[in-house]
C-alpha cells in the first residue's frame, strides 16, 4: 500500500504552504507602500500545487518556474531571507538584488529560475532533463507554466521534444483561469489543457489544485514513472490565484465575490488543516506553532530586507557572464 505521509512530512507540507502564504500576503501589503521596486506576481491560493509536487523532489531534481514563481522557489528550498531581499532589490538577495521577483534562481537548490518569458521554462527544462538522461541518473525535471503559456509554441515544442527523447519531465500546467486578464475558457482552444497531452503521446491528468493530497498523490505517480524511464507527463492543476495578475491589477475581469467564494469554500490551507486534524494526524497546536514560527520568519525577512544595502554602481557588470 502506498504509505501515508508521516507526521514530519505533513508538518513540512503545512510549513511550506504557510510560508508561501505569509510571504505573499506580506509582499501584497508592503508593495502598496511603493518601497518594493519592479513588478510582483503573487502565488497566494496556489500553495498546494508547488508544495504537493516539489515535496517529491531532491536538490538534484530541477524545476523551471514562471513569472509567478515565489511559491515554487520556497517549496524548492530557496532561502526565504534571500528571496525577500531580492524582491526588495538588496545586495543580500538571491541574485544580489539584480534579478527581482521574476528572476529568482538558485541552481544549488535545483531552481532554474522564475522566468519573465511566458512559456520560457519548457526548453530550459528539456535541456536539464536531457542532461539527467545522458548522465543516467534517476532525477526528474519539472516545468511549471500557466494557462497563458499553454498556448505558446515553446511549450508545444518542449512537450514534443520530451516525448521524442523520452525525457524525465513533468509538465505542470497551473491553470488559474486567467492569462493576465483573459479567461482561459476563452483563450485556450481545447477544453482542458490536459487534453493536449495525447497529441504529444503522453498521459494527461487533471488534478484539483486546492487539495494538497490530490496534487501530492498525482505528482508522486507521475514523478515515479519519470524516474523509472517512463517518460513525460502533463499534469493540469486547476486552481485560483487570490491576488491580481500583478500587484496593482484592479481585476475588473473577475466577478465581485469570486475570490472570496473560493477562499471560503476551497482554500488549500484551511482544507489541509481540517483534514489532518480530523484524521488525528496533526493537532491544532502543531499547526499554531508553525503559524507562529512562519510569522516570525517573514517579519525578520522584511526587517532585514529593509535594512540591507542596495547594489552599487560597481556591481552593475558583475554576474553577467558565467565562466566555465
Amino acid at each position, binding site marked *: *500500500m502506498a504509505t501515508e505521509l508521516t507526521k514530519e512530512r505533513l508538518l513540512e507540507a503545512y510549513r511550506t504552504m504557510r510560508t508561501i502564504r505569509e510571504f505573499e500576503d506580506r509582499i501584497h501589503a508592503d508593495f502598496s507602500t511603493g518601497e518594493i521596486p519592479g513588478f510582483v506576481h503573487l502565488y497566494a491560493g496556489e500553495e498546494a500545487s508547488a508544495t504537493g509536487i516539489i515535496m517529491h523532489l531532491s536538490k538534484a531534481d530541477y524545476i523551471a518556474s514562471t513569472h509567478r514563481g515565489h511559491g515554487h522557489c520556497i517549496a524548492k528550498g530557496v532561502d526565504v531571507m534571500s528571496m525577500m531581499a531580492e524582491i526588495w532589490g538588496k545586495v543580500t538577495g538571491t541574485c544580489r538584488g539584480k534579478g527581482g521577483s521574476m528572476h529568482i534562481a538558485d541552481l544549488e537548490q535545483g531552481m532554474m529560475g522564475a522566468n519573465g518569458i511566458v512559456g520560457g521554462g519548457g526548453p530550459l527544462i528539456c535541456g536539464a532533463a536531457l542532461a539527467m538522461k545522458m548522465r543516467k541518473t534517476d532525477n526528474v525535471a519539472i516545468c511549471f507554466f500557466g494557462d497563458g503559456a499553454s498556448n505558446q509554441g515553446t511549450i508545444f515544442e518542449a512537450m514534443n521534444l520530451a516525448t521524442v527523447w523520452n525525457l524525465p519531465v513533468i509538465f505542470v500546467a497551473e491553470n488559474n483561469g486567467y492569462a493576465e486578464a483573459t479567461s482561459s475558457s476563452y483563450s485556450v482552444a481545447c477544453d482542458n489543457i490536459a487534453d493536449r497531452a*495525447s497529441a504529444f503521446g503522453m498521459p494527461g491528468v487533471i488534478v484539483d489544485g486546492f*487539495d494538497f493530497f490530490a496534487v501530492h*498523490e*498525482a505528482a508522486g505517480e507521475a514523478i515515479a514513472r519519470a524516474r523509472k524511464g517512463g517518460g513525460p507527463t502533463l499534469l493540469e492543476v486547476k486552481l485560483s490565484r487570490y491576488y491580481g495578475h500583478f500587484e496593482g491589477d484592479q481585476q475588473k475581469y473577475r466577478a465581485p465575490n469570486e475570490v472570496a467564494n473560493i477562499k471560503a469554500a476551497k482554500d488549500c490551507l484551511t482544507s489541509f488543516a481540517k483534514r489532518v486534524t480530523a484524521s488525528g494526524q496533526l493537532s491544532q497546536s502543531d499547526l499554531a506553532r508553525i503559524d507562529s514560527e512562519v510569522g516570525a520568519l517573514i517579519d525578520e525577512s522584511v526587517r532585514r530586507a529593509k535594512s540591507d544595502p542596495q547594489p552599487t554602481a560597481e556591481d552593475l557588470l558583475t554576474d553577467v557572464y558565467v565562466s566555465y
Partner: protein
Amino acid sequence: MISVPVVPPSRQASELHQGGSRPIPGSLPLSMPTHYATVGIIANPASGRDIRRLTAKASVFPTVEKANMIQRVLGALGATGIDRVLMMPDMTGIAAAVKRAVAAHAAESHIRWPEVEFMEMDISESVDDTFNAVELMCRRGVAAIVVLGGDGTHRAVAMRCGETPMATLSTGTNNAFPDLREATTAGFAAGLVASGRVAACNATRVNKRLLVEAPGRREVALVDVCVTRHLHVASRALWDAESLDELFVAFAEPDAVGLSSIAGLLHPVSRSAAHGLHVKFANDGREAIRHITAPIAPGLLASVGIAAFEVFPAESSISVATGSGTIALDGEREIEFGPQDHIVVRLDLRGPRTIDVAATMGFAAQRGLLDI
C-alpha cells in the same frame, strides 16, 4: 441558448399518453411523426481525465467525441419523433460544440433533429452542475435522460432523477454501470421509450443501489462501495489493492472492470438478483482463503487476497468494520472517516430506472415499430 417554441409540460404529457402525434412537413420517411416528448442529455465534461490515465493506462475520452456522440443521439431521437432536447451546459466545450453542430445541421441537412435547448443555470464546474441540471430536467418533465459518463456520472444523475429512466452511455474511466454501446442505438431506444412507443414495463429495469450512511452524509453507489485504508480522498481513484479493506457490491459481473470485478470473479451477482455481496480482503493481518487476479481498473490487473465473503441480502444493513480510512463510491474515494465515525451500508432494491436498449429494440422489432 437556442430559442424554441415552448410546449408546456402538461401538453407534452397529455399528448404523449393519448398517442398525440402529427407528421412533419418535409420530413424524411425515416423520421416518425412528432411526439411532444422531451429528452434530457447529461454529458460529464470531466469524465475520463483523472489519475488513472497515469496509473492504469485508462482511455482518454476527448470532448469532441462526447459532442459527436451527442449528435448521434440527436439524430436517433429526431428519427423517433422526439421534438425537444434539454441539455446541460458546461464550460469545457461540449455544449458549445453541440450548439455549433445544431446550427450547421439546420443549415445543411433535411434530416430532422429535435430542438435543442441549453438550460439556463449557474455552472460551478462540479458535480453540483449535474445535480442541478437533472433536477431542472425532471421539473420540466423529461421522459428520459441520456447520460454520457462513467460510474460516477451515472451515480450523480441517479441521485436526482427519481423515476425518470436513464439511457446509459459509458464515456468515463470505469464503466461497470453504464452500457458500452453505440450512441445511435442508445438514442434510438431512448426515443422509443420517451415517445411512449415502447412502454416502460417492456423497456426499462429498476436497478439496485447501495446506500451509505456516514456522520452528516447520506450517499448512494450504483455498483460498489469500497472501504480503504487511505486516510484521505486525495486524487479519488483507487489502484492499490493493498489499501482495500472491505467491498460491498450491488451486482458483480465476471466480465466487469473495476472493483466489482473482484466480487464478480468470486461469486457473480446479477443485476436482477435480490442480493449483493460483501467481501473482506486479506489485508491488515487477515488470512486469505483465496487469491484472485482481477482487473480493478482499466489496464490494471491486481492480485487480491480474499479473507471472507457473504451474500448481502436486500434491505439489510452492514456496519463498516474498518476503524479509519476512506469510503469509495463506485470506485472513487468520497468520504474520509475516523474511529469515532459509524458507517452503515444498506442494499436497496429501489434504485434508478434504466433503459434496456436490447430489450427495447427487441420489442420494437417484434412489433414492427420501425417499419416504414
